[in-house]
């Protein structure tokens, strides 16, 4: 018994084939993006940080501090791209979902297939990123395994959430660029990615608390170099990510089904 129904696998297959046509871009961006951020922020900004805090944050180099946040962000971004774009295209731009629905596929299978293909991209991105982190000496081998697995989990949960949101977008009206600027960018900047959340005034700290990126990053730091994290926080963060993931899948399946049958 496989996890996915035959129908979902077919949808995933066609999505993966589509991604294959973009392989050069996916691979270059997948490697280029982490390398650029690691050099510029990890080493460039890091040298400034270590000048004023010779011990680094949590007693580790700045590069090691931001590494978990960077890999998780990349996984979330990859997952979001691979669900939001095909979902908007399938419902609005090219309407391929309606053509798929006219065959024996169900809406839920289409939703699953798209998410599963995105999962493939998330795995690829996370593994590549994990290797780059290892090469930069930003994580230990066991740490790399931990943060890579965590990035895959977080990326997939986030993709499910975004798929549920994208499934209810009816007028694309710049949703893509808006999602990037209003959701992703603030999340990237205010989730304790580049500094401990406590460095910010309380007025903006709440962004971190609701941000899956912050929860995942804290988990990542705990896994990667054993940052002091109370057990209850670990449990809350894991639960939060799981709720996003499971809730996203359930909602997305239902919304796909409803939109393709009404």
């Amino acid at each position, binding site marked *: 018994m496989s996890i996915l129904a035959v129908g979902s696998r077919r949808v995933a297959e066609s999505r993966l084939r589509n991604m294959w046509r*973009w392989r050069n*871009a996916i691979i*270059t*961006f997948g490697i*280029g*993006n982490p390398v*650029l*951020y690691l*050099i*510029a*922020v990890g*080493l*460039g*900004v890091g*040298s*400034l*940080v270590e*000048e*004023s*805090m010779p011990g680094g*944050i949590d007693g580790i180099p*700045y590069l090691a501090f931001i590494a978990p946040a960077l890999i998780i962000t990349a996984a979330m971004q990859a997952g979001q791209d691979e669900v939001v774009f095909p979902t908007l295209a399938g419902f609005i731009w090219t309407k391929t979902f309606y053509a798929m629905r006219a065959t024996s596929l169900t809406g839920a299978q289409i939703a699953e297939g798209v998410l599963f293909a995105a999962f493939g991209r998330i795995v690829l991105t996370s593994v590549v990123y994990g290797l780059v982190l290892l090469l930069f000496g930003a994580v230990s081998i066991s740490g790399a395994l931990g943060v890579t697995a965590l990035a895959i989990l977080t990326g997939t949960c986030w993709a499910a959430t975004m798929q549920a949101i994208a499934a209810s977008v009816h007028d694309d*009206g*710049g949703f893509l*660029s*808006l999602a990037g*600027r*209003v959701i992703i*960018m*603030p999340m990237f*900047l*205010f989730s304790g990615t*580049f*500094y401990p959340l406590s*460095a*910010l*005034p309380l007025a*903006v700290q709440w962004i971190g608390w609701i941000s899956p990126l912050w929860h995942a990053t804290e988990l990542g730091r705990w896994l990667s170099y054993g940052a002091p994290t109370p057990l209850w926080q670990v449990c809350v963060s894991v639960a939060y990510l799981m709720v996003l993931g499971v809730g996203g899948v359930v909602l997305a399946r239902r919304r796909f089904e409803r939109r393709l049958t009404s």
Partner: protein
Amino acid sequence: MILQALTSTTAVAIAQRRAGLADAGIRSGRARMLLLRNTLALRTSNALAFLTGFVEPVLFLVAFGYGVGALIGDVSDGEQSVSYAAFIAPALLAASAMNGAIYDSTFNVYFKMHFQRVYQAMMSTSLGPLDVALGEIGWAMIRGASYAVGFLVVATLFGLTTTWWSLLLIPAAMLIAFAFAAIGMSLTSLMTSFQQLNWLQFWMLPLFLFSGTFYPITAYPDWLQVIVQATPLWQGIAMTRSLAFGVIDMALMGHVLYFMVIGALGLLATTRRLNALFLR
């Protein structure tokens, strides 16, 4: 008869008045009509993208200036020592002028060129390719200037502006937007698929990260510093930083000249390419 020709307002009479000029074949002197068009278009569809452009540099300023800034303290770039927020603020202003101009002159222009066919319609009026190039680049400059004004207000509220020279950041942002829009539009006019636009976008990232935006380029080895200094965003950041810190010297003239030259080259290339695309 002559009086009539001067006051007549028909399209033909308007065109005849310019017919003798050297650039009559490529310019009608009405680039501002594109600004009118884009302003009207803003109302119906593009307002959100325009507005969110204000927010991005502010977010970066808060997150890096205050978040990372708390870890860093003061930064010294050569002789001066300033807070980290004050150090990155002018750089973020230059980068937002660049980003706004690039977004307008690449994605928006590509869309107008290949899907909306707006330029085809324009070229079948008495507008010429130089009008279109000037109009779109002028629009990018207005965008750059409005982002600069918005950002300057925020930076002043945060107490990051210390000299009246800071007011010159507005024309500086326009100059940066001019050059990037001209180059961006000339590249876009050569493109044949959306994928190429994504590549362009990809190359913007190292420009943004490595041009001394977040740390002084003295962190690099000498040979790398020379290369970075030749890139346009570094030139822009060096210009905005020296204005923000009130360092007025000959280097400033060098930056201005740099942008004038690459902007003019981009404008020339764009005009030639539009001519080849739509009038040949």
